[in-house]
Each structure stands twice: as structure tokens, then as C-alpha cells.
């Protein structure tokens, strides 16, 4: 896929609307043996329109997990672009939504329109979905809005990571984004149980750059469901242990951990909400690695292998 320097390409003014949908299903999930938790899902429906492309390679993973790559021509979004994707993960399927590279949000001169991404994730009973992509990188003056809505059954499991970096560090472009809006909502059996809404921008009282206090990476991870207990324990152990006497807190990485508990009609789901701040992309990536390391068996590989 050819990467184009959209930012300097003044002609690229026609806003693009890329729509996509991918549906994974297992044939006869009810006939599976009870002890078989997950089976390899088949792609029963796959649609996409320019500039979006959805790829589901046959042999990406060593487990029954299917890896899904949403790709955007041009390697990023320009003002006015809108990407809209529905992911439907069927019963007993396990899927990973990941990426090949960071999502760049460019700024078009004279183009004040917002670049948008809307992702809907629908998880059926006993489905497992991990969303572990590369970070969003907003260039100076970019305007970005991302909405991620998860509709999950109380018998499914979710790991959703969303992270961003300050911008093009090589150009000393730190937190110069005009506006960055990210909304994550999780519904369990159609009831809203989690909402994370961040709208970052300069205000007349304060600049974003100043308020970010030298951190260059901001990340959020939501984990929830019946089959993520080991990951929750792993993250809890890493990020919520109280300090011991005299122990100093790190100033270059900060990770927070909040437990989540969702009561449904049938059961109580456990989960957690992790956020991290890191002083460099490399440090931010080390946190991402810590989070994903507990998932490699389930995913059948490491989506971040040989990166960063």
C-alpha cells in the first residue's frame, strides 16, 4: 500500500467515506463439545468501501483466533474522512482487531472538517474479542473524533486497548492537535455499563501541551467478561499494588488500575479499567506489551512482534 504525504497534498480534498463490515461465525456452535471453548470462526460476510479495506488473513495466528486488519489507503485520515466499521463476532469465535501501523490523522490546510472513526463491536455469547491496535498519532492542528461502541453479551469477553501519542515527535510536535475526541461505550445485554469520554484540546485557560506534563503517550484499556479473569489478575498485580515503605513512584510511566464490576440478570462480570501515561513511545509500548503478554496463547501470537 503506497503511503502518500496527505498533509502536503492539497488536492486531496474530497472527503472519503469508508464503510466496512466483517462477520465471523462458527458453524453449528451448539453442537460443539462443551469443553471446547472456542473454534476457528469463518468469515461469512466481508464488505468494505474505499478508502477502507478489511483483511482477515488465513494464517495469521497459531490459535483459533482470527486476526482482522482494517487498513486505510494513504495510511491515515485527512479532514472530512469518515471510517465506519461493524465487527460482528459470532458465538464461540475469538477475534483480534489489530493494525500494521499507527493511525495518522493529518491536517489539511484550509480544511477544518473533523476526521472520524466509528467502530461497533458486537459480541455474541461465548465470543472473545481483543482490540489491540497501534496508537493514533494526531498531527498538528488535526481534528479527530473516534467513537467505539461495544455491544456484548454477558457471556462474552472483551479486551479493548486505545492509545495515542503526542504527535510527530521528530518535529517536536507535541500535543498540537486541534481536538481529539474519543468515546468508548460498553453495553452488556443492551445496558450501558461503561463510558469513557475524553475531549482533549487547548482551552482559553490552559494548553493541552502544558497539561500533559511531559507525557507523550496516553492509553486506555478496558477488560470485561467471563473469560478474562487471568488478565485482570495480571493487570491488578502489575498496576494496583500499594507501594512499600520508601518506594518512589516512577515519573516517566504512570499506570492506574480500577476494578470494574457489572451486575447482569444472571451473573456478575468482572473487569478492569487501566490507563497509562508514558514519557516516550518506547515506554508506552512497554506497557502495551505488559498488557498483551497475558493474551498471547489466546491470540495465537503477538500482534506487536517486531514493532517499536
Amino acid at each position, binding site marked *: 500500500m503506497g503511503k502518500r504525504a496527505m498533509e502536503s497534498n492539497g488536492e486531496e480534498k474530497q472527503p472519503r467515506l469508508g464503510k466496512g463490515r466483517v462477520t465471523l461465525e462458527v458453524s453449528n456452535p451448539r453442537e460443539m463439545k462443551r469443553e471446547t471453548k472456542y473454534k476457528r470462526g469463518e468469515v461469512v460476510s466481508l464488505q468494505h468501501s474505499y478508502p477502507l479495506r478489511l483483511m482477515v488473513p488465513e494464517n495469521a495466528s497459531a490459535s483459533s483466533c482470527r486476526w482482522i486488519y482494517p487498513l486505510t489507503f494513504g495510511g491515515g485520515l485527512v479532514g472530512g474522512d469518515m471510517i465506519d466499521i461493524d465487527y460482528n463476532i459470532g458465538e464461540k469465535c475469538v477475534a483480534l482487531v489489530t493494525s500494521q501501523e499507527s493511525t495518522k490523522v493529518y491536517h489539511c490546510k484550509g480544511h477544518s472538517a473533523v476526521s472520524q472513526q466509528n467502530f461497533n463491536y458486537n459480541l455474541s455469547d461465548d465470543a472473545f474479542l481483543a482490540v489491540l491496535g497501534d496508537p493514533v498519532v494526531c498531527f498538528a492542528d488535526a481534528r479527530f473524533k473516534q467513537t467505539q461502541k461495544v455491544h456484548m453479551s454477558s457471556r462474552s469477553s472483551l479486551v479493548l486497548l486505545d492509545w495515542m501519542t503526542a504527535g510527530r515527535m521528530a518535529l517536536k510536535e507535541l500535543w498540537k492537535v486541534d481536538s481529539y*475526541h474519543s*468515546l468508548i461505550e460498553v453495553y452488556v445485554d443492551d445496558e*450501558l*455499563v*461503561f*463510558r*469513557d*469520554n*475524553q*475531549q*482533549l*484540546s487547548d*482551552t*482559553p*485557560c*490552559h494548553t*493541552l501541551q*502544558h*497539561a*500533559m*506534563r511531559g*507525557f507523550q503517550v*496516553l492509553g486506555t484499556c478496558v477488560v470485561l467478561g467471563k473469560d478474562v479473569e487471568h488478565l485482570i489478575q495480571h493487570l491488578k498485580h502489575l498496576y*494496583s*499494588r*500499594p*507501594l*512499600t*515503605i*520508601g*518506594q518512589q*513512584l516512577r*515519573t516517566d510511566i*504512570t*499506570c*492506574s*488500575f*480500577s*476494578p*470494574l464490576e457489572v451486575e447482569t440478570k444472571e451473573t456478575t462480570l468482572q473487569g478492569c*479499567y487501566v*490507563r*497509562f*501515561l508514558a514519557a516516550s513511545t518506547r515506554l508506552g509500548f512497554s506497557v502495551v506489551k505488559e498488557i498483551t503478554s497475558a493474551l498471547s496463547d489466546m491470540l495465537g501470537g503477538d500482534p506487536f512482534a517486531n514493532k517499536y
Partner: protein
Amino acid sequence: MEQTLLLLQLSDSAFPTGGFSHSLGLESSVQHRQILHTEDLKSFITCALENAGSFNLPFVREAYTFCSDLKTLQQLDRLCNVSTANHIANRASSRQGRSMADTASKVFQADDLHQLSSGLKHRHYPVVFGAVCGCLGLPLELTRASFMSGVARTTVASAVRLDKLGPVEAQKTLAVLQKLIPDIIARNQSRSAEDACITFPVMDVLQNCHDKLFCKLFYS
């Protein structure tokens, strides 16, 4: 005159809402060595005010508007709860809201106030604050100003107790930062609770780490 006196009573530190036991993340930020100079402190308080404006004020306003509609208040309370996944902020909010609802219902003896302490599950502070002010007939503008002034006062008072400011310096800082409040209120005055958001996340993440601290003065 009556309203002003009511407002003074509600916003007085003697009115037991327990605000003094919260630092809104300042203590954790200090221990994370993020508050080294007075400028850092001003930045912190500005961020606290901006986040209160973009996240809490929408709940204050809607609860104020629907102060006698229990069903809507319950929805707001629930929305506030699922929108505050930061468990430190969540418990600080519901603790203060609970104290305020209980105190207000005992002090002012109005039916609408009783339903706040009995009818809301989480009793989040901005929801209770807006509803109490609405039930008592205070003007919306004063309600918002009073909420924001509480945030400024709480953080500045915490800074004094954390030995980051002297008492006179603290009042000087408060006098300066208070001037930001009208602008923050104006920018968020029509924001809906559905759109309540965090504007500056760093202090929120640092607050989220509060329970990791080995020794602490504050509850949040």
C-alpha cells in the same frame, strides 16, 4: 437575601459534605513528583477546574433542572456512575454526594430532598448538588458558581495541608484562579450529561493511582 444566606450556608465548610477529606488527585500528583513549583500547582488546579466544568457541570445543570423528577435523577445518577470508571473519583463523588443528600434532607426538611437520600442508588456529588440547589430554589448561575468555587477551594485548601502553599499565598492563588471560573462555566453551559467528558486526563490518571500511595492524608 434569603437565597444568598442559603448559599452561604451550603457552601460553608461547616456544612458537612466531607469535602475536606478529598484532594481531587493533588496528593497523588504531589507524590508522583508532578507538583514541584507553584506554577505546577496552578496548572493542576486549572486542570481540575476544566475537568469539573466539562464533566461535572453538565450533571449539576441537568439535576438542577429535573430536581423534583426522581426518575430522571436516577438516570443521571446511573449515567454519572458508569461514566466515572476511575474508582477513586467514583467513591469520592458518591461519598460527598451521600453526605450532602443526608445533611440537606435533615436540615431543610423538604420532600424532594428526602427522595434524594432514599431514591438514588449512588448519590453522585454533582447530581445531588444540582438537585439540592434546585429544590432550595437557588438560581442556576449561583449553583454552578458555587460548585466550581468548591472545587477551587478544595484543591487550594489541600495544597495548604500538603505544605505546597502558605495560607496567604493560597488565598492569593485562589483569587487568581477563581477568575477562570466564569469562562469555564460559559464554555460548558449547554453541554449535556451525555457529553460529559474529561478535558485534561493527566491529573485524573494520577488521582486514579491514589490507593497505591504508601502514606496519605486524604481519601482521594
